[in-house]
């Protein structure tokens, strides 16, 4: 019965110990993901004799997860609304190939090619969204068709060759790091450190503000001690994440893009009416419609956003590899979907979070990265990823049943 989420603090506060236990129990779903991620990291650290945990490797790991993470931000919306998008792998490859071709073969400046590619992503979203929302073809079919169409488009654009865009500016999207500002020391990026400090300050300010807001409205809040513990531990986590990048080359631009996407789509999904509509449609489409929600428009918009995210991911992907190939993005849709599910998105729709999906993306990238470090073959990588996905869903299903 007591399925109270983390925001809930309306019950009387009893003994502090009991409270903590209650709080932990309630938040266990969110924590299992993080615990699972830390577990994966520990295992690989031991198996690779510490190579895995080096700042260099973790920095690379973040970079590797960037494309999946970007698409996962909007895939969460798609899946929460009860749809699926199988076309993202092909779409990332296709948009990546287009931007590479525009720069290399058409000699467009990067600053023109990139916005045009984003526009292409928008068109892809408009197209698929139209079929799903207004014609009523199931998203599974529409995006399966999209997957084939764009895979064809990708082969057509690349002609089976590898295209390497020779633009220094374009390479920055996937390979560049924030520059150093004042301190020119190898292995410490002061600009990134400043951003990290700023992030910690912003987090604490917003946490305190929301607490003050609740007090002002007369809602119960957690005890000052607990609040402080939460804030301190969150600050430590943020500091750790940033220090990984600060003590390597700095924050990659791609990771800045991921962070921006996460902030934007967390806000959209939690604080905007549009986000609420998405959850409502996934939870009960008929009730949503009868409550005056424009289901078609909302579904349409979800796919438009997805199209945009895919184009961004396509640009980062091509830039990071500095190459567009015919096989680009193959199977990526499965990584993205797996990331969302590992991150707690319900396969039935109605539930899920952007933050969770990012953790999921990190889990998937960690598996790839760790097994590569161990020189395990592709054979094992596929098998292990499959098993992890299966277990993640099994855990999800069984915890849901208990509720």
């Amino acid at each position, binding site marked *: 019965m007591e399925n109270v989420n983390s925001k809930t603090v309306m019950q009387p506060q009893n003994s502090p110990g009991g409270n903590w236990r209650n709080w932990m129990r309630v938040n266990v779903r969110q924590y299992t993901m993080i615990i699972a991620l830390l577990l994966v990291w520990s295992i690989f650290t031991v198996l690779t004799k510490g190579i895995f945990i080096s700042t260099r490797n973790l920095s690379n790991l973040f970079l590797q997860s960037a494309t999946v993470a970007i698409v996962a931000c909007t895939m969460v919306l798609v899946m929460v609304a009860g749809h699926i998008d199988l076309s993202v792998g092909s779409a990332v490859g296709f948009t990546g190939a287009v931007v590479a071709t525009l720069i290399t073969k058409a000699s467009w400046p990067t600053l023109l090619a990139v916005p045009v590619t984003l526009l292409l992503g928008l068109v892809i979203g408009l197209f698929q969204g139209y079929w799903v929302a207004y014609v009523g073809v199931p998203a599974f079919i529409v995006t399966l068709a999209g997957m084939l169409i764009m895979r064809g488009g990708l082969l057509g654009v690349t002609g089976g060759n590898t295209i390497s865009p020779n633009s220094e500016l374009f390479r920055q999207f996937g390979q560049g790091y924030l520059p150093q500002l004042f301190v020119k020391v190898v292995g410490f990026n002061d600009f990134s450190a400043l951003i990290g400090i700023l992030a910690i300050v912003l987090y604490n300010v917003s946490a305190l503000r*929301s607490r003050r807001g609740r007090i002002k409205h007369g809602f119960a809040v957690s005890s000052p001690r607990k609040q402080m513990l939460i804030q301190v531990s969150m600050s430590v986590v943020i500091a750790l994440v940033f220090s990984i990048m600060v003590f390597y080359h700095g924050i990659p631009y791609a990771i800045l893009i991921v962070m921006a996407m996460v902030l934007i789509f967390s806000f959209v999904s939690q604080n905007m*009416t549009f986000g609420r509509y998405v959850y409502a449609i996934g939870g009960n489409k008929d009730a949503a419609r*009868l409550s005056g929600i424009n289901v078609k428009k909302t579904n349409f918009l979800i796919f438009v956003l997805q199209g945009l995210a895919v184009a961004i991911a396509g640009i980062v992907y091509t830039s990071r590899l500095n190459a567009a190939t015919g096989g680009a993005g193959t199977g990526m849709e499965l990584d993205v979907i797996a990331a969302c599910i590992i991150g707690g998105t319900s396969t039935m729709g*109605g539930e899920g979070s952007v933050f969770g999906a990012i953790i999921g993306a990190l889990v998937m990238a960690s598996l790839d990265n760790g097994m590569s470090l161990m020189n395990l073959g592709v054979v094992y990588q596929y098998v292990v990823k499959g098993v992890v996905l299966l277990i993640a869903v099994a855990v999800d299903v069984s915890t849901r049943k208990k509720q």
Partner: protein
Amino acid sequence: MDDYILEMNHITKEFPGVKALNDVSFNVKRGEIHALVGENGAGKSTLMKVLAGVYPFGSYTGAMMFNGAELQFTGTRDSEKAGIAIIFQELALVKQMSIRENIYLGSEFQKNGIIDWDATFIAASKVLHEVHLNRNPLTKIIDLGVGEQQLVEIAKAVSKNASLLILDEPTAALTETETETLMQILRDLRAKGVSCIYISHKISEVAQIADRVTILRDGRTIATDDVKNMSEERMINLMVGREITQRFPRVEHTPGETVLEVRDWTVYDRDLPTRKVIDGVSFNIRKGEILGIAGLMGAGRTELAMSIFGSYGVGRTGELLLDGKKMVANSPSACIEKGVAYLSEDRKRYGFIAMMDLCGNITLASMAKLWKNGVIDGNEEIRRTEQYVGDLSIKTPSVEQKVGNLSGGNQQKVVVGKWLMTHPKVLFLDEPTRGIDVGAKIEIYNIMNQLVEQGVCIVMISSELPEILGISDRILVMHMGRLVGDLSWKEATQEKVMYLATGGK
């Protein structure tokens, strides 16, 4: 000594933190209809789940004897084998399959995995005849009415030669005639020696059909007695544990000016565009009155409300005048904006979102109005929601509780709250008290009366005649898509309304 087919002695079943059943003893005689009544959460379902083997032996304490033998079920198959058949509130039929396939699902006439369809057909025809369902066994379930589907479930139980039949709220979705048919079938089965446990909220039905009644409250047996020794009032008082003076709190209203006028409203079937489901209906809804709409299932009451609310198909003609001005609204959102709201009869399917919290559900229909620039103010949202939680006395540990975890009555109040937040001028309530307990029903009636005081027009569609007669100020009667009666509450009687609803002139 009495011949008991079932004896459940000192059953106690605990869930973490809750004693759902506390030393409950319950027994059923051979060939009797035994009613089991109690408010939602009294423990009826839990008791039946123990009996059905949903909670296996060992997860509860106490003993069960069936036909003189001790029962120790490990799962539902065991109870089925023993001859106990349960028909749950939500029917468990495969909609795309035929009657024949459904009846023998899981116990097919087969040899080496190959089904003998002819034998199935003959056997199915026979049981259908027994339950007075005059349908071809090849008809798909989806093409049957709710009442007929119920009969298929009973046919399924009959086909298994069940000696104890458990019916959970069997008439919740049935019309009066269908209910009458069901009662007759139960009496026939009783004559054949089949015992029946009849779970219901409708006390009048219990008085009509049952031989004995057991009343549960808060997981305890409160009383077991012959029905003829119990008045309806006494049963209700025992159920709720307090005196209920008025089941239908009537407040005198003085109707004011017309708010919504429906003129020559004709609606065509969603699936069959040539068939009229509503045929030239005209009526007024006045300020400060509760307008009841009575009629049998299929009379078009829900279609009438849904079409006015812009959520039923596209084929419709006629005019709506809101405050004297022509209202053009073809979608729920347009209607909500203009001040028309519709609470659906099926709250689970159309009303609330189970995995969303109270905040999300109650503000759902008002979002566009509340948050003009599309950004939700979380604190303000909680504040506004709490106001409705307080006004409607919704029992919940928090406004951030998921609605799926609330009781039926509280879920209904959440949906009511959702519509109140839109500040409707006209509120359509379609079966507002279906499947909720007596206490919550009275609370819903009181809320309706308060709303009318505040100047909201209420249109209540209900299949329960006592409710229609007890609460409405004016009663419209529908029959086959037409309006066949317009009575004030003073002149309306059950007989008059039924006479009109069944097509009498």
